[in-house]
């Protein structure tokens, strides 16, 4: 069996508005569009997935919150309706997904070998969270690639932030080892917004883009600084700044997916492809890609 590899990682945020504005058949509410820059950004990312042809997608979502350890979806087929508790007017999505249980179990085992608490979610009635579904739908609406869904233990919130992010780095190392031993070609999806300051009321017409802009100017400046560094491949500098970014921009990367993904990829100092940036109820969202196959070819 050839050695498995991580072929790419994506920063793939999960505002349910992006599903809503696209009007896919799986989602009940209908919109008149909106958030086009981000929707088009995801269209570009989808083309990359077409080109990369991964065997599996791994997604870490901050909206499956687990108190006791890091959990992995481990039921071969999961389906049902996922209604966003915050935006039920926008997201009522009938999902059906295939889980790569073999890889999920391998990630779980590798995590435990490294001293992390890890669990396999084996309840067939489990309702998959809207963060996982939104990211997966936006990156691959055909739902034809098996997935591994990973919960957010929220250790960076519960522990000291740096301590919690270290734990996410360990989870990334475990994920990489599991993928390498699997023989599969994997894409990682960090389901995170950047600046997370947001408005507290929703416009009467949610997709009224005349009401959409960054909630917080300082947070916007932070987003641009981080994106520019990532575009230049200055990964070490981004991680040096990460604690300040999280504190000052209330950045959702605190929930750990970003650190998990970069640790799994080995913190590559390669330029990211920015597919697009936009705000959703004032939060900053970037769709970005790190193509490790191209980096290795060069």
């Amino acid at each position, binding site marked *: 069996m050839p050695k498995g590899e991580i072929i790419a990682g994506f920063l793939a945020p999960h505002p349910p508005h992006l599903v809503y504005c696209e009007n896919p058949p799986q989602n009940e509410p209908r919109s008149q569009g909106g958030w086009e820059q981000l929707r088009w950004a995801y269209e570009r990312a989808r083309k990359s997935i077409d080109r990369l042809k991964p065997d599996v997608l791994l997604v870490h979502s901050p909206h499956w919150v*687990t108190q*006791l350890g890091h959990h992995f979806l481990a039921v071969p087929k999961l389906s049902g309706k996922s209604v966003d508790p915050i935006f*039920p007017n926008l997201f009522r999505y009938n999902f059906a997904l295939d889980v790569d249980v073999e890889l999920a179990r391998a990630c779980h085992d590798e995590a435990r070998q490294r001293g992390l608490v890890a669990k396999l979610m084996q309840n067939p009635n489990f309702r998959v969270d809207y963060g996982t579904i939104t990211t997966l739908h936006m990156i691959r609406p055909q739902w034809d690639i098996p997935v591994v869904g990973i919960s957010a233990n929220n250790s960076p919130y519960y522990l000291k932030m740096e301590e919690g992010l270290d734990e996410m780095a360990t989870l990334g190392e475990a994920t990489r080892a599991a993928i390498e031993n699997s023989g599969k070609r994997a894409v990682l999806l960090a389901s995170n917004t950047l600046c997370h300051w947001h408005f*507290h009321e929703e416009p009467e017409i949610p997709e009224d883009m005349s009401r959409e802009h960054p909630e917080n100017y300082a947070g916007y400046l932070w987003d641009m600084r981080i994106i520019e560094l990532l575009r230049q491949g200055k990964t070490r500098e981004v991680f040096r700044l990460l604690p300040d970014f999280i504190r000052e921009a209330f950045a959702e990367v605190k929930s750990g997916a970003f650190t998990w993904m970069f640790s799994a990829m080995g913190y590559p100092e390669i330029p990211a492809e920015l597919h697009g940036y936009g705000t959703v109820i004032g939060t900053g969202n970037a769709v970005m890609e790190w193509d490790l196959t191209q980096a290795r070819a060069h």
Partner: protein
Amino acid sequence: MPLAAAFLVPGSPLPYLRPDVGPWTPLATACRRAGELLALQQVDTLLVYSTQWIAVLDELWQMRGHVHGLHVDENWYEFGDLPFDLRVDTEVTAAAIAATSAFGVRSKGVDYDGFPIDTGTVVANGFLNAGGQARLVIASNNVYHDWATTERLAASAAAAAESMGRRYAVVGVGGLSGALFREEIDLQTDHVASAEDDALNRDLLSALDSPDVAAIRKHAAEHAGRTRADMGLKHLAWILGAVGERYAGAETLAYGPTYGSGAAVIHFKLRDAG
């Protein structure tokens, strides 16, 4: 006396799903006892606030008349499913929604098939209202609302119930100290995570038996600041706001751990109306 009873119960599903686990048995037994006490009151409506129904934009209220389905807790799915079948008092809820703009809170009703009812509400209803005798008013926990706003929301819900002639009870759903074990434990050895949390929880329970509501508010704020308390104990604010001047103390029916965090079943004493 339209307000007939008030209870605080845990939102953790552990005592509900695994009442056989020794450290959780007293909590489960006390929750069932609270259900018996509530049944004696023959209330029409329960005003329920669970710390686990999180809202971010606006204050959300359940407005679907009949809510039923199968809930699976995102943490404790291994212990089983949580079927639920709730009737909602939509008339009182609509009145409560209409009232909150008077104190600067924008409220919205949610009426969607498949809306995820939170674990705390499902568990509380299962213990206290298993037969579905009472209809519910269910308010969300907007994470940006403070203690005072939560009290005002509860007071407005109570006023709405009273204005419609309901006989009602108030239910706050949530825990006490919030520190929990981050490693797997032998369930039979579960206990409150630290001696300090345990002592502070017991102090709080003792303080609740005083009729001095101002002192309780102060004590609760101090407790929350020192124990990672569940959502700043806003479920207690919900009780105080709804009960108002009829608060006369509290009896703790049970106190114990839920995987390290503190939990209690509390039956509040009410002054006679008038």
